[in-house]
């Protein structure tokens, strides 16, 4: 082959293949960014952070009128059961306010939410930096061709042949069954009691370190939702703190809720009203996260609070 021909062939191959690949990804649009069909529920196949971040561009604003921002604490709260609103559960495993903002800001810049639910848990103030580099504007272009995109395709294909379970459903709700399988079963009652005795890492329930920047990010998150006209609801999830650290946790939670307005809804599941839920060891599968049935109870409580307000 002559050099000129080699050069032309190679450059044509590069541009041809790259264009075809980008074109195919644009057409397939797995994150519903470019040619989103409304009312098409898309589960999170893999790469939770990237996928939920990209869903913020179009999928969530187009298909939902409510959003829940939280961490893994609220990951399996089935928001599809919330009545009167279509709420996307944008909780992230280990997510904090900085990461919640990356999703919410995209959503609010492109659509209108009627309801924004914020989980008021110390995890939201755990650091003021995103915990991974997989939620940035580069991912937008990555949806036209990137390694996470290929992983997403692979996961979807494996799902079809029954070798993969989606991480979240079309509402963003976690499927915690693989986690339960990894932890053998729902933690037995006596072990849970031990967990409550402080044998597992529950530091997040009563952090010793207070990150002021993270607090400000959390406040700004709520303020942004309020500015766009969304009804605000803050939910303190049920939980137990390490013995002797209740005061610290309560003070932390109060600080998180400090900027709420009288018209905002506050649902504190650590109040005595929810003692039975919190003290039932079967409510938690690892001492910290709610089992699906307890999460359903939490959602039902949210429903009652919303209905009470609308009356």
């Amino acid at each position: 082959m002559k050099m000129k021909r080699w050069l032309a062939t190679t450059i044509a191959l590069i541009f041809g293949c790259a264009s075809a690949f980008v074109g195919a990804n644009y057409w397939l649009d797995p994150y519903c960014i470019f040619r989103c069909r409304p009312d098409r529920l898309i589960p999170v196949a893999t790469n939770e952070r990237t996928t939920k971040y990209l869903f913020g561009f179009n999928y969530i604003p187009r298909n939902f009128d409510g959003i829940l921002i939280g961490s893994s604490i609220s990951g399996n709260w089935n928001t599809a059961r919330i009545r009167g609103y279509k709420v996307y559960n944008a909780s992230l495993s280990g997510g904090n306010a900085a990461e919640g903002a990356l999703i919410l800001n995209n959503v609010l810049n492109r659509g209108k939410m009627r309801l924004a639910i914020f989980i008021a848990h110390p995890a939201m103030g755990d650091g003021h930096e995103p915990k991974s580099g997989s939620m940035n504007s580069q991912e937008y272009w990555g949806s036209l061709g990137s390694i996470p995109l290929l992983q997403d395709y692979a996961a979807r294909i494996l799902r079809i042949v029954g070798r993969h379970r989606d991480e979240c459903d079309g509402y963003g709700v976690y499927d915690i069954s693989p986690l339960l399988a990894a932890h053998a079963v729902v933690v037995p009652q006596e072990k849970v009691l031990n967990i409550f005795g402080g044998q597992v890492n529950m530091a997040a329930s009563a952090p010793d370190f207070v990150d002021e920047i993270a607090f400000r990010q959390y406040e700004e998150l709520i303020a942004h939702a309020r500015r766009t006209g969304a009804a605000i609801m803050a939910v303190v999830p049920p939980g137990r703190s390490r013995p002797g650290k209740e005061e610290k946790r309560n003070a932390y939670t109060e600080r998180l809720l400090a900027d709420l307005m009288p018209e905002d809804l506050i649902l504190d599941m650590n109040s005595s009203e929810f003692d039975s839920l919190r003290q039932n060891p079967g409510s938690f599968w690892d001492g910290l996260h709610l089992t699906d049935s307890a999460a359903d109870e939490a959602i039902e409580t949210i429903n009652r609070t919303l209905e009470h307000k609308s009356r």
Partner: protein
Amino acid sequence: MLFNSFQFIFWFWPVVCIGFYLLCSANNRQGAKVWLLMLSLVFYGWMKLSNLFVMVPSILFNWFLSQRIVAQKDAKQRKLYLWLALAPNILYLATFKYANAVLGTHWEFPLGLSFFTVTQVMYMVDCYEGLSPPNNLLNHSLFVSFFPYVAAGPLTRSRTIVRQFENAGNSRDRAADLARGLFVFAIGLVKKVIFADSFRRLADAGFLQPTNLSTLEAWIISVAFTLEIYFDFSGYSDMAIGVALSLGFEIPENFNSPFRSRSIIEFWQRWHMTLSNFITTYLYTPIVRSFKKVTLASASVATIFAMLIAGIWHGAGWNFAIWGLLHGVALGVNQYWKKSKRHMPSLLAWAATFAFVNITLVFFRAPDVGSALSIVQRLIPNPNLLSITAIRAKVRGIELEVMFLPLLIGTILAFWGKNSGELRKTFAPTTRSSLAVASLILVALLFMNSNIAKDFVYFAF
């Protein structure tokens, strides 16, 4: 601007080539050089425009002094002008390099300052020695700021490149230059975005939190950094060589399979070769000449001094000085060993060389001496021997899935693969090589679009 960015690959590089070859075709060689100079300044100022205010005065100052050096008939005057040129260059570099450490300032280190200062120091000395003719201002500006090597080398001597500028566009087969350039660039791009960035994730995971590493983990992360810096810097050098080649210019090779070395002397003949040449010619030789008698002992002392300076050139931390000093001492010991004519089995020699390079690079990567010692301590077998929990806690499973193949293939290639110089010699315009280059670039683009493009390690020096 980064070589591994879409802006560079899809607009800057094509625009440079098209403009350059159009001007060359119109027999406008001066225009072609001005074009290259303009775009070199755009390339250099792209990340931070103010960087130009650091480089341009340096170019003008050194050009002026080089004219003065050459104009002097009297040897003493020539020497005086040489020192008048060298001292401000060293001071200029030292100010930016060490002010933060010494004066507590927070200046950002200007891109490529170490490299363009060193190239101009080489040029001044060559002018003084009569080895290099004085450049006119256009040639000198282009020689210093030429975009393929301005940010991080390879260190190129004026007499190597200026002669080529004078013959710009004279190549008989421009398509061949472009094709070879693309081939070498593709190799460099893959080295950087696929291999170096994968090793970097693993190395960062350990170096960010070295206190709870097992012996196995300490070795994994230290080897990961050794391979990261190799792929990062040799990848950068390949891309620089490829881009220059696409314009018909040959710039020096920088790496020649360094991990095949069986001694430290051999290692420095294969690793960052243009820096090794600089150290030998412009540091070691003058130091050794300053001794009254050249003996093995004086040569070893000169080596240690030269390597210490090279270490300090890399940064203000004591860790860089220790790195340079260790290599200087090892080179000295190696000289004695060589003289003694004792033989070491090849495998043992290779293992000892690699282990030494690997351990000393811990000082190069660690933020300070304390952290470096903490990791080096963990390289020695301890009760926490084989655990990998610290790495597993830092590197998520999904990242490992993506990184696994690059890590495996990268390790094999670094030790046993052909290097880019060898591959370049075997390049032939066949359908197979066309498919290979296109595939490499496509996979590299996929990786580039997946991570935030990472800076090159040597941009910091």
